[in-house]
């Protein structure tokens, strides 16, 4: 493995990194952690670049990134269990981000859609990590049910049920998002 960055690797990463970073952020809810996760996935890609460069690097990165994002969120959450004012985690949704969490557009009061996307980020944090990963792969990355199942290592049936449960939970937590959540399901 040469010390200087492989030109083709650099070209691939620079073309794809922003999209992957955003996907990781939507799953884990933390911009810094998302960058850590993406960096880790890209290191793994670099280690296998000679083999993967001619195959499907997107699938490899997505597989590593989403699975690590799910694991990271589970473990990060663990440090927060039972730590609200009364000592217990909130049993019902409280759409209040932890201090330090990045809330996009928090100061922007101009457009209604800004409110929607703030609510979306907050509401996503009340889903399980796997549910978020399914939604992000299906709706943000535009992957099929079969591909989503393959990337996450679950069955197509699980993808269907997780998608359905996640959308139902979003409707409960953020009713104002209903117009964005009803209607035709993606293919």
């Amino acid at each position, binding site marked *: 493995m040469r010390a200087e960055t492989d030109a083709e690797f650099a070209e691939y*990463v*620079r073309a794809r990194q*922003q999209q992957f970073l955003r996907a990781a952020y939507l799953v884990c809810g933390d911009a810094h*952690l998302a960058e850590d996760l993406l960096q880790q996935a890209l290191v793994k890609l670099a280690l296998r670049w000679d083999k993967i460069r001619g195959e499907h690097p997107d699938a490899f990165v997505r597989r590593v990134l989403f699975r690590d994002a799910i694991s990271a969120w589970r473990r990060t*959450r*663990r440090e*927060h269990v039972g730590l609200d*004012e009364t000592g217990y985690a909130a049993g019902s949704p409280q759409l209040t981000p932890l201090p*330090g969490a990045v809330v996009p557009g928090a100061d922007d009061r101009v457009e209604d*859609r800004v409110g929607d996307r703030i609510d979306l980020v907050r509401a996503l944090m009340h889903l399980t990590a796997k549910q978020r990963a399914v939604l992000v792969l299906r709706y943000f990355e535009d992957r099929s049910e079969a591909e989503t199942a393959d990337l996450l290592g679950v069955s197509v049936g699980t993808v269907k049920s997780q998608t359905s449960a996640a959308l139902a939970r979003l409707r409960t937590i953020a009713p104002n998002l209903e117009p964005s959540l009803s209607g035709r399901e993606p293919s």
Partner: protein
Amino acid sequence: MTGIRLGQLMEEASQHLPDVDLADAAWAAAVEQRARHRRAVLRGVAGVAAAALAVGVLVTRDQPEADRVTPAPAPATSPSPVATDRATDGTLLVQAPQAADEARLPLLATHLPAEIALDRAPTPLAQLGQGALTRINAAYLRQDAGGSYRPVLLAQDGRLVDPGLSLRDTTDAEGNAAAPLDRAAIAQDGSAIAFAQPGEVVLFEIPGAAARRIAVPDPTLQRVGWTAGDSGLVARSDTQSWFVDVGTGTATRLSGRAAPSHYEIVAGGGPGGSPRLLTWDAFGRGTGQEVLPAPLDGVYTNTISNIVGWAAAGVYLNDPGSTREYQGILAVQADKPSSRRLLVFGDATARTKGCCVPLGWLSGHQLLFQSSGSQGSWVLVWDITSGQVSRVSRVAGGAPGGANAVAVSFP
């Protein structure tokens, strides 16, 4: 249309993220990782060769070379001056070293090794024989291909040992899963380790190398930790707390919330929502509380307390200011509130949220904590008297974002 509208919202919700360029850093890290792997292989070959040469004259050494920990290569440096300030409420603010400098902090020799390699294969306990373990210094989890967790114990003599336990995720009432390792999992004397599991606590007693399962009628148990003086265990879920008597193997539900440590720092509940310091007895029952003036509005870890009355927890600050210093570790001595001090972690771009987690007290005034971020993961020690931070162990081989969590015993 669900797909289009939801996708658009996700696009907008993530468009604020700054541009990054990770290509060169990722490639360089891969080159370094491969070089490190090559060096480890060469060390293993050298170890096998040395063992082959020594076999005729030395037969009593029972610690395989591959199992022993290797010292960190970075040289120790001299302590640097500690920058301090005062918050408006009087809390002493101590500036933590930059994340990028943690690898070069002075090395402090402790009961922990200079490197904790999470990806190194442990020795099955069955191969070591009866009485091989007397106490453990640390523990972490490895996840197998099937998703189960295998605890790995760091024995007092430096060996990594697989006790043969298989654990599963804990799951809360909403179905969120988490790895079953709590920072307070190891008894303070290193003689036992406990894991929360759905509907039970799994207790592994080191001297007898025996696992016991103690039923706790709560399928959503999340945490378990030892009470002061290792008197028992407090297990809790989001809504219930239990005292587990390890002598009788029974669990008793506690009427209110409970905590395993003698003291606990909580973010609110005082006048005007101010923080409080709660006191608990050896059975996890609350015995008192007092107002704790401190510049925080969130607590993100369990509190770790020691026998001389110091308590410490990871906290979020209530006035991050323009420097993005939004998290730290607060320490306070219970009978001397004016002693409170806050180790403040800056350079937010190199640190993850909840980056720094107290692990235990090395002595009455030295707090072990784990720091994780883009520069790696370290067990460090904060001397709350001098303010100095030193390096103890490099935590290598784990996934980012807390998958490298380590629990430690007291020395």
